[in-house]
């Protein structure tokens, strides 16, 4: 049986009972002290927060604490060159250098990121605290940075907080599915027809989704085995622009002869008492994501109404012969078993996603503080950044290479869109489509870093480095 006590808990668990998160972007100020700090975090004692592992034993932890190290962080700790050079290129180069692959251009380009992400060489460690309230976050932070000399906090703490019913900005429901892993107990056991992901999808040193293929495990084995990589991203969401676009798109649809095909059951089926325009706004919003706003019902199962009918599942569905738009966000990022161009790539680019919104909930009916920044503090975790996160970002999220009907367009929600060239096709019952144009970029990257999430053995190894 796999030893979950060796793996950081945020990789295999969702921490659903902890509605608050804080990310601390840290610079190692004292190499020797930082090693001692790491060793203590992994082994208990010395009044530092304990790393939460995947094995909770009998008691749920009150707060959770996890760390990720950048390449610069591993160097700052004095990891030998012979070991550093066994890490993958994309991790060594870092998120800044991979900007074009990730669509981080224009306003989202790394040179426009605010502190602490402006200066990637100084970002060594990202520590993440999960808790029930701010007092607990403060307490763990104080404990982690107690002596003020070992680690230097860069910029301010990045706080996120989950909204009721797992809602996120733009009004969608998040946290509905995650990959389930072979050999890992799945506490939620929701219906899901997708094949279980091999453990190597998320942990180094285990079988991967490509039969026979092995990713290189950083050396020595104690450092690499059971570790994984994380793309930490601060994603700003343009809530006002998004709501405005829904209105513009609804007005455009109302002028189309085939608009009735989009509301075959009438506007009331979308929401009691909604005007056709407001119902069409929801149709556009649902089509952009592939799930209806509020309920999270997949369009693959229910293309004409947002409410789940008996026998339907939020999680158990597939795309072939469904009316989910080919370019919808969730279909683009994980085409499940649907036909795609790259026949070997189905299920190969899956990611564990751990995200929490930041900024206050936005209510378009009562738009208070529209200028406040809102977004998602997100983590995309996978054993191979190049084969999973980057492959998904550059060929699927943007470009749309997986399906000839969307190639040349970007993800309508998350893509690097330019309103002058962007487009998105809404499928109709007749099989025809209506093309929406002029989508601006709704999500801007405001920072991020590639981090390595070491196993507990690896943290002890780093803590015991002598060089």
């Amino acid at each position, binding site marked *: 049986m796999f030893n979950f006590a060796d793996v950081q808990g945020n990789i295999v668990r969702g921490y659903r009972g902890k509605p608050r998160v804080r990310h601390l972007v840290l610079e190692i100020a004292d190499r020797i002290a930082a090693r001692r700090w790491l060793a203590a975090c992994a082994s208990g004692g010395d009044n530092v927060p304990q790393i939460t592992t995947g094995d909770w034993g009998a008691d749920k932890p009150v707060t959770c604490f996890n760390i990720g190290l950048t390449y610069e962080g591993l160097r700052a700790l004095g990891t030998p060159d012979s070991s550093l050079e066994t890490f*993958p*290129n994309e991790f060594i180069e870092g998120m800044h250098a991979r900007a*074009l*692959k990730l*669509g981080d*251009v224009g306003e989202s380009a790394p040179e426009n990121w605010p502190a602490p992400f402006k200066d990637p060489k100084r970002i060594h460690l990202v520590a993440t605290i999960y808790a029930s309230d701010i007092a607990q976050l403060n307490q763990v932070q104080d404990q982690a940075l107690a002596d003020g000399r070992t680690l230097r906090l860069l910029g301010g703490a990045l706080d996120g907080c989950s909204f009721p019913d797992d809602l996120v900005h733009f009004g969608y429901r998040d946290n509905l599915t995650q990959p389930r892993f072979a050999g890992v107990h799945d506490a939620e056991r929701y219906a899901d027809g997708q094949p279980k992901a091999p453990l190597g999808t998320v942990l180094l040193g285990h079988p991967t989704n*490509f*039969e*026979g*293929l*092995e*990713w*290189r495990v950083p050396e020595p084995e104690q450092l690499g085995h059971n570790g994984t990589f994380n793309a930490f991203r601060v994603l700003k969401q343009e809530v006002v622009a998004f709501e405005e676009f829904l209105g513009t798109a609804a007005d455009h649809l109302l002028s189309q002869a085939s608009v009735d095909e989009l509301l075959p059951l009438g506007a009331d089926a979308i929401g009691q008492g909604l005007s056709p325009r407001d119902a069409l706004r929801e149709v556009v919003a649902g089509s952009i994501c592939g799930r209806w706003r509020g309920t999270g019902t997949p369009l693959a199962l229910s293309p004409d109404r947002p409410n789940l009918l008996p026998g339907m599942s939020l999680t158990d569905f597939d795309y072939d012969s469904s009316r989910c738009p080919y370019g919808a966000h969730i279909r683009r990022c994980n085409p499940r078993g649907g036909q*795609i*161009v*790259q*026949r*070997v*790539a189905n299920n*190969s680019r899956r990611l564990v996603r751990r995200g929490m919104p930041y900024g206050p909930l936005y209510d378009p009916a009562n738009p208070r503080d529209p200028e406040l920044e809102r977004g998602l503090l997100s983590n995309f975790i996978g054993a191979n950044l*190049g*084969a999973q996160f*980057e*492959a998904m970002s*550059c*060929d699927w999220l*943007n*470009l*749309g*290479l997986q*399906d*000839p*009907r969307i*190639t*040349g*367009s*970007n993800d309508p929600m998350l893509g*690097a869109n330019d309103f002058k060239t962007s487009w998105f096709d809404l499928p109709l019952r007749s099989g025809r489509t209506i093309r929406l144009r002029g989508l601006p970029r709704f999500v801007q990257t405001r920072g991020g870093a590639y981090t390595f999430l070491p196993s507990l053995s690896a943290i002890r190894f780093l803590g015991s480095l002598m060089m």
Partner: protein
Amino acid sequence: MPNGGSWFDQFVNELPKKPWFKRVGAWILVPIWAWRTPVKPLRGGPRPSIQPADNLQSMMNLIMPLKRENKSPIGRAKAALAIAENKDQIFAGLDNVGTVHFARFVIVNDNICMFSVYDGDFSNYIRDFIATIGGVFDAVVALVEGGDDVLPSAHKVEAFIEWIRRHDLYQVPDTATDFLRDQEALNGDNAASGNDDLSLLPRKLILQLRANANVSLGSGYRAYPGYSAAQVRERLGIGW
């Protein structure tokens, strides 16, 4: 070119045309320059871009020198056989990769070459290629200098992708002066030198073509730019 009237200016201007000077240049001058100003080879593959049309129909020019013991008619015959024996599997594999327009194998002197036109990201192309037919292609790579270090490709995916990229030709930009910008960027120099008079046959250009002896010139001609292989197949009604 400066058009001075003095006999000395004329003499200098005529120098590059003199056979003796060409020899002196090639055998003495350029090696001395190269020794004084080391130039790193520029990286292979297409230029990174966010524009969708730039990421479709990219060209790979893979030049793999045969091992020393294979640099002979016998070695070339072995390479030809390695392709011929596995042709059906390689083609079926490329079909499954799904993003490849054309691919062909060529022997030039003692190099086995694969030229292909593919859509999307280079690493994704090569990774999917390994996942589909890596084992078969390994037989070809085994004949090539340095190939043993990245075999079997299925267990050395990252190293194999990097190796292929090193053997993919640097693609000279369509705008010749961008060549100089690439060179400056490689050396971490962000300020354009401005010394871009190509009619003077810049020393930088000569040294770079010494470091990258084989290059692909320009991004190439496309009869129907901006379409993926799957889009072409879909429109022709032949399935994708």
